[in-house]
């Protein structure tokens, strides 16, 4: 008699627990929907940033709990009985079974770069609403899906790269396009992120000194790790972080000394050449000396700064002074020209969907994953976290007064070059800005000027410094926080720059090696020097072009970067869709097909507008034609004719690069459509190139193999 009673009670208990869980999730969903509605419909008094945090976190929780679970169970049918590459090919080097939390940290550190910080900051010119919505929705339905599915595909293929998988599953041409896209995006990415640093450092002795000092600090760490304590990364990094924080503070003494300040006050062009020389050195020097120790430093500072920013926003809860929508949704924005569609999506890029992540998801991570089910937490979860970084950057940018935001981010050709002219222009747009506001702010953050610093980094640094100083130190520490934020942004942009240049060098050596064998040998010094010069010359050209551009460079180069990044995302989603069709998941193919169709539409529209739009501020050809007409009409002074001709050439080159990117995506889509038609009409045999099934030997609780000291 007692057994049924117990069973009845436990049944009731289970039902109650289920109901409580369902109730909790409904409450989370309602809180997210309510916060989103407040963001979308609130007018009048400035909105508190807590709404953004609540909306983002609740939407992420719901997306992770429901959508990623659906992807995992129904669409991909992940199988934990199957041995992952980390078990099948464990070697203690590349294939290392790793605890899922540690791997999450690895993966997040690899995917989080300057994109989710700079993109939303630039997109804030439309107001906070479009960017915030896209950051949340785009990540949940696009970016996270891409990262998760590509990670899953690579796990099932022994950790193969995106290019290899595209070649096997789509077509040889698809694989070749993926490789070309990677090289193209790399060159444009390196040029544009270098431009962000130049615009942050020019005429700033404090920031330039701080960043310059990270080079000897990195070399010191490199020597320590190579000769004194090989491989003791943690102690060396903590030592390095201490030194970097010291030079951030010491920068103020350099800026205050007339003679030293002169040494570190550099123009944009000088900084561009310094970065080009640095990129060449980092690519050609042994990796242990400069590149690796800088990467260690950057990883620690990046993690610390992102967590501090999150904590700062939660503590200070600043009000959003930017309106939900600005007048620049009409396409005449001063930061970059173009309407919300497609330019908001192209500009935000990495914070919502990033093609580059597909390279990480098919690189190191799949070789270290313990169980297939961890791909959901690592692939989908890490991208949600990156999207949250984007939301925080949006909050930091929009917590500034709009007048200050536009004054920092607009080029002199549009707003003028003096505080009075800038104040007049920006006030005439309806965003009040007194002439003395910006010089006073510049003085407060320890800079000579903050005017015309397009690129997003300085305005983000001002926003972060205001949040940090409201948490610790008040106005006294504003200048230190500002330079800490600049150092944080510049340090990890430099890490992308040197690591990217080195990988670009290997790609060029591999391509060149097909033509002439010795060139492909990665240890052959003439080959190293020549390939380093080629890759540095390629991104250096884009950088120089951006620095001398009267519209600030970001106006041309960031959209180009966004287009190439989204192109790579479309390549990844084409591959994912093809794999799903081959797996027989036709019913669920919309999960990758819908974001792919959206990205192709956005990319093609943006490409078309950047090439053919009649407005010289949007269309590359229209701008070069208007400059040519000005030369023809004799309105350009003789001394500037050579520079103007170079500008014309640069814009025509940008148009050609954009056209090539658009053509690549068209070829890939046609190729994929033919493949899909063949599969669906059963006109071709379907071969899925997965590694054969092997049952895992690891017990259920196995949590990784690193034998760290406690």
């Amino acid at each position: 008699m007692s057994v049924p009673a117990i069973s009845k009670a436990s049944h009731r208990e289970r039902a109650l627990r289920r109901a409580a869980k369902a109730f909790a999730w409904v409450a989370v969903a309602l809180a997210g929907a309510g916060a989103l509605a407040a963001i979308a419909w609130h007018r009048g008094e400035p909105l508190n940033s807590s709404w953004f945090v609540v909306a983002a976190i609740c939407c992420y929780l719901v997306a992770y709990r429901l959508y990623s679970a659906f992807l995992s169970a129904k669409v991909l049918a992940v199988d934990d009985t199957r041995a992952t590459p980390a078990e099948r090919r464990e070697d203690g080097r590349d294939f290392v079974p790793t605890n899922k939390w540690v791997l999450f940290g690895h993966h997040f550190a690899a995917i989080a770069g300057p994109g989710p910080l700079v993109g939303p900051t630039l997109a804030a010119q439309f107001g906070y609403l479009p960017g915030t919505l896209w950051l949340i929705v785009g990540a949940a339905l696009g970016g996270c899906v891409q990262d998760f599915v590509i990670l899953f595909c690579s796990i099932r293929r022994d950790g193969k790269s995106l290019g290899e998988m595209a070649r096997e599953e789509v077509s040889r041409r698809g694989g070749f396009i993926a490789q070309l896209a990677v090289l193209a995006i790399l060159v444009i990415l390196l040029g544009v992120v270098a431009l962000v640093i130049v615009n942050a450092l020019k005429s700033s002795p404090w920031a330039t000194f701080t960043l310059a000092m990270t080079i000897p600090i990195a070399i010191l760490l490199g020597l320590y790790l190579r000769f004194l304590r090989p491989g003791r990364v943690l102690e060396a990094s903590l030592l390095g972080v201490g030194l970097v924080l010291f030079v951030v503070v010491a920068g103020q003494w350099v800026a205050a000394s007339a003679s030293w300040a002169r040494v570190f006050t550099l123009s944009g062009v000088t900084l561009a050449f310094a970065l080009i020389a640095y990129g060449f050195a980092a690519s050609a020097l042994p990796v242990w000396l400069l590149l690796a120790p800088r990467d260690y430093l950057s990883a620690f500072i990046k993690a610390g700064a992102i967590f501090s920013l999150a904590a700062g926003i939660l503590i200070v809860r600043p009000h959003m002074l930017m309106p939900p929508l600005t007048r620049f949704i009409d396409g005449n924005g001063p930061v970059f020209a173009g309407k919300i569609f497609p330019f908001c999506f192209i500009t935000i890029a990495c914070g919502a969907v990033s093609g580059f992540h597909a390279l990480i998801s098919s690189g190191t991570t799949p070789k270290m994953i313990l169980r297939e089910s961890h791909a959901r937490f690592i692939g989908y979860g890490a991208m949600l976290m990156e999207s949250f970084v984007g939301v925080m950057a949006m909050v930091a940018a929009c917590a500034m007064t709009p007048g200050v935001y536009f004054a920092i981010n607009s080029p002199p050709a549009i707003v003028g070059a003096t505080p009075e002219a800038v104040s007049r222009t920006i006030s005439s747009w309806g965003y009040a800005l007194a002439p003395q506001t910006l010089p006073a702010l510049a003085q407060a953050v320890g800079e000579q000027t903050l005017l015309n610093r397009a690129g997003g980094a300085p305005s983000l640094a001002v926003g972060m410094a205001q949040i940090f100083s409201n948490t610790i130190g008040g106005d006294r520490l504003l200048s230190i926080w500002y330079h800490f934020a600049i150092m944080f942004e510049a340090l990890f942009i430099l890490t992308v720059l040197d690591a990217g240049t080195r990988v670009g060098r290997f790609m060029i050596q591999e391509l060149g090696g097909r033509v002439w064998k010795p060139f492909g040998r990665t240890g052959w010094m003439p080959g190293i020097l020549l390939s380093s010069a080629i890759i540095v010359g390629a991104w250096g050209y884009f950088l120089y072009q951006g620095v001398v551009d009267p519209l600030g460079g970001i106006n041309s180069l960031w959209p180009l970067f966004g287009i190439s990044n989204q192109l790579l995302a479309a390549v990844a989603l084409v591959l994912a869709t093809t794999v799903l069709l081959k797996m027989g998941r036709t019913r669920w193919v919309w999960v990758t097909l819908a974001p792919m169709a959206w990205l192709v539409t956005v990319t093609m529209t943006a490409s078309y507008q950047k090439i053919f739009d009649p407005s010289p501020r949007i269309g590359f050809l229209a701008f070069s034609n208007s400059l040519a007409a000005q030369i023809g009409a004799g309105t350009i002074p003789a001394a500037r004719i050579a520079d103007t001709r170079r500008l014309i050439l640069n814009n025509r080159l940008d148009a050609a690069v954009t056209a090539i990117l658009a053509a690549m995506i068209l070829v890939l889509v046609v190729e994929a459509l033919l493949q899909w038609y063949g599969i669906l009409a059963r006109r071709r045999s379907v071969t899925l190139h997965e590694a054969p099934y092997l049952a895992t030997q690891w017990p259920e609780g196995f949590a990784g193999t690193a034998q760290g000291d406690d």
Partner: protein
Amino acid sequence: MPRVSRSLASLWRRFWRGLRQWCGDADYESYLGARWRRPDLRRGAAPLSREEFYLEQLNRRYSRLSRCC
């Protein structure tokens, strides 16, 4: 109280181990651990020294994309 301090100590140990694995400090121990567990890896060459492993690891890690935009 001893239970709380034991839990805190255990939490700290887990955090420290995770941090060492995250930053690469524990890579050499993982390499030796893999050799210990997998007899096929022990056949042939002797294990690399910590210094050799560190250099080999860096060259391999930084010859492919490891950082994103």
